[in-house]
């Protein structure tokens, strides 16, 4: 009795708080049309002269200077560059978390307005919720994104759970669905993180240094897993990384960015055959690619220090 009263009171309170918080937001689905038909969209992502500046007036910090970038549907693009160069800003632009100060960002044939693009995202920190099992964690996007959202209660123990477990099997975590996050190692959590980013079948996957906190061997293992996921699901992937071997292994195209405020210095295709293997990353032409990228980043860094010094 008392308990139910408490919860009722709590819920009423929350509703009120949320109404206050949400008041300024746009109605949710105002931009939601049909997905763009196959073949009509040339680019999945298109940045034209996008500029991002944080803050205003004297305190303005330029994060991204005029950047133009086109990414075709199903492409795997890696963004590399010195730290703090605006790589993550590009991801946040594409996902709709940040608005361009000037310029245009078009994702999936529509301009990124004040709404999210429902893309899959994964960060270095796997951020699994500790009170849910792994499969429930992975199903979290289905609770949010339509058309799954409306049937979540009905299908969460059948179709959706199978979906989550199919993905888990694909990343080598078969049978771990009913474990809790604290029962898994860092590498396992990161695999689950990839599953969560893909569960709602996004056409776009944005990865911000997803393997940055892992040891070398686990990282290489996860490259292969991610490659496999990409080859089967074929989302457009934008990967931010510091690791040039990672970029070479995974990407079909690598963009090198300059120091802050970032812009794209070099844009090169990676033509190695797939599926690529770790052994390939030690072959001469792979090493040569690495050296080339390294030289670009070295230049960018020294230019930055000269500029400020």
């Amino acid at each position, binding site marked *: 009795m008392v308990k139910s009263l408490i919860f009722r009171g709590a819920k009423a309170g929350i509703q009120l708080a949320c109404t206050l918080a*949400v008041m300024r937001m746009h109605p949710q689905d105002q931009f939601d049309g049909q997905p763009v038909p196959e073949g009509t969209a040339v680019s999945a992502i298109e940045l034209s002269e996008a500029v991002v500046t944080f803050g205003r007036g004297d305190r303005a910090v330029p994060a991204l200077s005029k950047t133009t970038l086109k990414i075709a549907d199903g492409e795997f693009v890696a963004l590399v560059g010195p730290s703090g160069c605006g790589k993550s800003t590009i991801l946040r632009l594409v996902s709709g978390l940040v608005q361009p100060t000037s310029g245009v960002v078009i994702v999936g044939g529509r301009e990124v307005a004040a709404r999210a693009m429902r893309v899959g995202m994964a960060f270095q920190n796997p951020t699994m919720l500790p009170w849910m099992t792994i499969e429930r964690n992975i199903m979290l996007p289905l609770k949010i994104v339509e058309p799954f959202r409306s049937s979540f209660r009905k299908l969460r123990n059948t179709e959706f759970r199978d979906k989550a477990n199919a993905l888990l099997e694909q990343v080598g975590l078969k049978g771990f669905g009913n474990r809790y996050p604290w029962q898994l190692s860092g590498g396992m959590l990161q695999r689950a993180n990839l599953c969560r980013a893909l569960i709602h079948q996004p056409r776009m996957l944005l990865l911000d240094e997803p393997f940055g906190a892992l040891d070398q061997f686990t990282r290489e293992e996860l490259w292969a897993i991610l490659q496999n996921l990409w080859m089967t699901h074929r989302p457009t992937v934008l990967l931010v990384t510091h690791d040039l071997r990672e970029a070479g292994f995974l990407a079909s195209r690598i963009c090198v960015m300059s120091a802050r405020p970032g812009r794209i210095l070099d844009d090169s295709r990676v033509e190695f055959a797939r599926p690529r293997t770790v052994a390939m990353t030690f072959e001469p032409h792979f090493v040569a690619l690495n050296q080339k990228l390294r030289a670009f980043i070295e230049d960018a860094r020294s230019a930055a220090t000269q500029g400020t010094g």
Partner: protein
Amino acid sequence: MFGIDIRQKAWSAGLIVLFFVAWELFCVITGMSDLVLPRPSQVFVTLVQRFPVLWPHILQTLGTTMFGFVLGVALGVTLGAIIGVSKTAYDTCYPLLIGFSSIPKVAVVPIFVLWFGSGTVPAVLTALSICFFPIVVNIATGLATTEPELEDVLKALGASKFDILWNVGLPRTMPFFFASLKVAISYAFVGAVLSETVASNRGIGNVMMTASSNFNVPLVFAGLFVLAGLGVALYAVFSLIEGRVTGWATRKNDVIAT
């Protein structure tokens, strides 16, 4: 694990017994008058003898405490959610809240009495006003510590603020919330008794007040024992609920290696 737990409990129980034995001995040896400090055995006898008279007062105190507590929780969760979700609301409301919470609640009772007369209402209001603050602080803290990365992941999916609050923010605050309930229930209890002592003709606080003006010191102490017992019981109930609901927050201790 288990053995240590039992031993710990045995020590706690031993200490309580020792406390009463020492008290009893102290009174016997010094020949203390029971007008100053009655022996615990006397207090227990009084407690048992007068229990039928005390019972309605116990219910009254318990009732006002719970009522004030429930209202306090509702208010606390609402304010905590507003403050925790919005940075602006946090900055705006915090000074006022701190100011309000710094007022000794005994000073507010006369005002409540002035407005609502003596009795149940001021007791409930005092309980409410004293217990909502820890809840506000804990809910707000829990909400403010949501991982920004996860928030980004969900926002990129088109989640509304409510979605994030409902699926991530609130479950995350549960350990904070239940920890604060334990504190809040004790506060509410203190508030209710306080108000009864000052302005009421019912409740344990009033019984103790009346007993002390009649120099019925054992009854005053019996009242104290009742309060201590109730306080412990309420605390125990909420810590039990806490363990049940938010076990995930403490389970990290026994990680199963896989």
